[in-house]
């Protein structure tokens, strides 16, 4: 069958036709030959009977008179007259041969080859002599019911066979001729068929190669609108000359209906366009193939678009995962890692490919890996999302880190959990900010409390001061009591000053910028902190411009800046030191500059660019809010000025004798613009 399958179509058609013709010829020859042969045999037998009968009648007289010469003459005449008679001889009543026609002696076996039964008129048998077949006729001779002899006649079958052979030959020749003609016609037909199929194959090859343009250069003959001359140019069939109209949707003919191919064919079969234009099965196959090619082309375009989209989304997703600073990982049901992003791989100190197939115990220590595994297992069993914050303490002494971890189950189409997706975000800075914000709010509360306390304490201080002064009027100025009352009054005034200063810095109101004395704002702050600084063995030196420059500013906010700088300076000097404040007026630039220099441990070079950032602080945990300098920075900018820092101190700033524990020191430089003085506010003059 494999061999048969590989034969060419033309060969198969020819073989088929040949087999059919030959089989038909054989069957025909067999039946015709048999019929003709039977007829001839019957005819030959009749002739044998007639000849034998005649010979019997004529031999009665010679047998009675024992006239052997006449008998001989009769026998020889028969063989001469009819060439089909092979032999003839006559026997007497005892079976002895009287006369025969054999020239080479009599074959004695012939006597017993055909025995006439008693009472029978004639008996016929077939004798095969080896050379030919002979019909042997035996007929007794009777006279008044008494057998007086037997006549024997041999008739040849060769002629009959020759006729049969001629008949067979004629049939064979006719069959061969028919077969030749059939093969010729079928070859032509098969050639046309295979040519068209070859074109279809070529078309399919183009399709496989990706060329889906269907017969763009070939116009379909006899389009429907040409046949009908309908003139409906808005019909889609006008636009598409490459396809038959029954493949096109939405055609305008009344018979077409609303269906699309192949349902449309139900209506098309009654249409004369379809009846006249549709071809045989191969043409239908070709046109269906074209439709398939077109459809495939559109589908491939859709698939390419979808593939492009998927690739873009995949690339986008890959980019998002790679760029994301969060650690993303996906664990399968076997608790091995199926996917991780770059951040996760970095945190483990490995490459992403290395982590595929690994387990938690391969990446983390026993405690961490056990905890992670338990969390994953609990998600696989319960499906509950894990959302928590945990502190991670590295073993190598790096600072501790806070992570916000979310673990989510991943489901398949059957709602089975197939994985656990984990995301860990480093919130160490956020935690630090939270801590600093809490501290900042505490400081805010303390500030408000201080303001309230200061306000509340003002009244009793006033009363103490007043009564002390009243008592002084009642006693002798030279007495000890008067001096003691003076001390009480003095200390009460000190308390009043402290309270007034505290109130000044705890104000919540945002006053407008007013004309103010630059030096005075600094001096007020210096007065406030001098006592505290003395306790810490720190001295404050002021070198202020004696022209007492006036600027437009918010006195309270600028005091906040000065206080912040002085507080930082104090904290930078353990065991004592010097703080020097210098102010200089530049009438050419119309600016006033303040210099705050300290002899403390200074600022590290790497931190110089960060000290004005919010929440930046080098102070120990719990000290400060990290907001002072950034707020000061904002205030100075709000005043249109500049603030900068230099560390260590430049030459010539602190020329006083420095203590032994002096460090490189820090210099803050603040420059503010002078603005044209405005008319003094009436309110200001009142107070």
């Amino acid at each position, binding site marked *: 069958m494999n061999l048969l399958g590989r034969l060419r179509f033309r060969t198969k058609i020819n073989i088929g036709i040949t087999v059919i013709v030959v089989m038909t010829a054989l069957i025909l020859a067999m039946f015709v030959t048999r019929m003709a042969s039977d007829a001839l045999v019957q005819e030959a037998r009749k002739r044998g009977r007639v000849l034998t009968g005649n010979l019997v009648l004529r031999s009665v007289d010679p047998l009675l008179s024992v006239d052997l010469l006449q008998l001989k003459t009769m026998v020889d005449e028969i063989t001469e007259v009819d060439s089909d008679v092979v032999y003839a001889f006559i026997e007497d009543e005892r079976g002895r041969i009287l006369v025969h026609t054999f020239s080479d002696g009599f074959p004695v076996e012939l006597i017993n080859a055909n025995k006439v039964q008693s009472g029978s008129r004639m008996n016929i048998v077939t004798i095969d002599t080896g050379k030919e077949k002979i019909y042997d006729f035996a007929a007794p001779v009777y006279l008044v019911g008494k057998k007086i002899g037997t006549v024997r006649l041999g008739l040849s079958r060769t002629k009959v066979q020759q006729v049969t052979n001629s008949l067979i030959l004629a049939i064979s020749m006719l069959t061969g001729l028919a077969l030749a003609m059939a093969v010729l016609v079928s070859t032509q037909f098969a050639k046309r068929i295979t040519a068209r199929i070859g074109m279809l194959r070529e078309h399919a090859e183009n399709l496989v190669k990706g060329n889906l343009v269907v017969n763009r250069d070939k116009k379909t003959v006899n389009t429907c609108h040409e046949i009908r001359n309908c003139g409906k140019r808005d019909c889609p069939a006008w636009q598409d000359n490459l396809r038959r109209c029954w493949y096109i949707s939405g055609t305008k003919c009344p018979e077409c209906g609303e269906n699309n191919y192949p349902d449309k064919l139900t209506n098309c079969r009654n249409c004369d366009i379809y009846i006249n234009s549709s071809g045989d099965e191969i043409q239908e196959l070709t046109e269906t193939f074209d439709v398939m090619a077109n459809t495939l082309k559109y589908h491939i375009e859709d698939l390419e678009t979808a593939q492009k989209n998927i690739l873009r989304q995949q690339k986008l997703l890959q980019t998002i995962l790679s760029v994301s600073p969060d650690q993303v990982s996906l664990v399968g049901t076997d608790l091995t890692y199926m996917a991780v992003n770059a951040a996760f791989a970095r945190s483990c100190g490995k490459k992403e490919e290395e982590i595929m197939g690994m387990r938690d115990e391969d990446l983390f220590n026993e405690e961490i890996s056990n905890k992670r595994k338990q969390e994953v297992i609990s998600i696989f069993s319960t499906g509950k999302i894990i959302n928590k914050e945990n502190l991670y303490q590295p073993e190598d002494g790096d600072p501790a880190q806070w992570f916000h971890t979310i673990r989510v189950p991943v489901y398949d189409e059957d709602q089975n959990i197939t994985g656990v997706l984990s995301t860990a975000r480093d919130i160490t800075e956020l935690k630090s900010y939270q801590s600093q914000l809490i501290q900042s709010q505490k400081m805010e509360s303390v500030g408000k409390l201080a303001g309230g306390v200061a306000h509340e304490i003002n*009244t009793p201080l006033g009363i103490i001061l007043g009564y002390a002064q009243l008592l002084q009027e009642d006693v002798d100025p030279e007495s000890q009591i008067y001096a003691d009352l003076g001390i009480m009054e003095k200390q009460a005034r000190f308390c009043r000053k402290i309270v007034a200063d505290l109130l000044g810095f705890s104000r919540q109101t945002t006053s407008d910028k007013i004309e103010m004395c630059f030096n005075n704002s600094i001096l007020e702050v210096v007065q406030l902190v001098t006592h505290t600084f003395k306790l810490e063995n720190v001295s404050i030196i002021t070198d202020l411009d004696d022209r007492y420059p006036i600027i437009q500013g918010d006195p309270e906010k600028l005091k906040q800046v000065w206080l912040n700088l002085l507080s930082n300076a104090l904290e930078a000097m353990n065991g004592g030191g010097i703080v020097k404040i210098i102010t200089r007026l530049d009438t050419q630039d119309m600016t006033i500059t303040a210099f705050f220099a300290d002899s403390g441990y200074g600022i590290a070079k790497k931190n110089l660019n960060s000290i004005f950032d919010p929440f930046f602080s080098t102070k120990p945990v719990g000290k400060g809010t990290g907001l002072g300098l950034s707020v000061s920075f904002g205030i100075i900018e709000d005043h249109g000025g500049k603030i900068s820092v230099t560390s260590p101190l430049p030459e010539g700033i602190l020329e006083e004798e420095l203590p032994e524990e002096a460090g490189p020191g820090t210099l803050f430089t603040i420059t503010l613009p002078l603005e044209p003085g405005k008319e003094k506010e009436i309110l200001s003059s009142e107070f």
Partner: protein
Amino acid sequence: MSEIMVLDDVVDAGILVKRILERKGHKVIVFTNEDEAISYVGNNNVDLAILDIKLSKMTGVDVLAALKQSQASIKVIMLTGYPTLETARECMRLGADEYCVKPIDKEELEIKVAEVLEKNS
């Protein structure tokens, strides 16, 4: 010399002012209740009122407005332990003659009162 009314939620503070000013010969009445003070001014001829700003029921600014409405010729000195620019502006707008800050020096108080009363006459 003059009749002076003092209103302060802390009675000792009011008494202190009373002691100081009585030595100068003034007649001084001390109140801690806003309604009583306003009623007293309405029924009597008071030359000067010394008002605290932080009070129990009202603010000194409200009392100032009420006193001016009741007796337009009255002189007022505001005496506050919590001075702000806003309250200072508001008091001056409503007709206060002085705005002083607690704790106030005895001599300063005497001078201020004398100045206000003298300006009136």
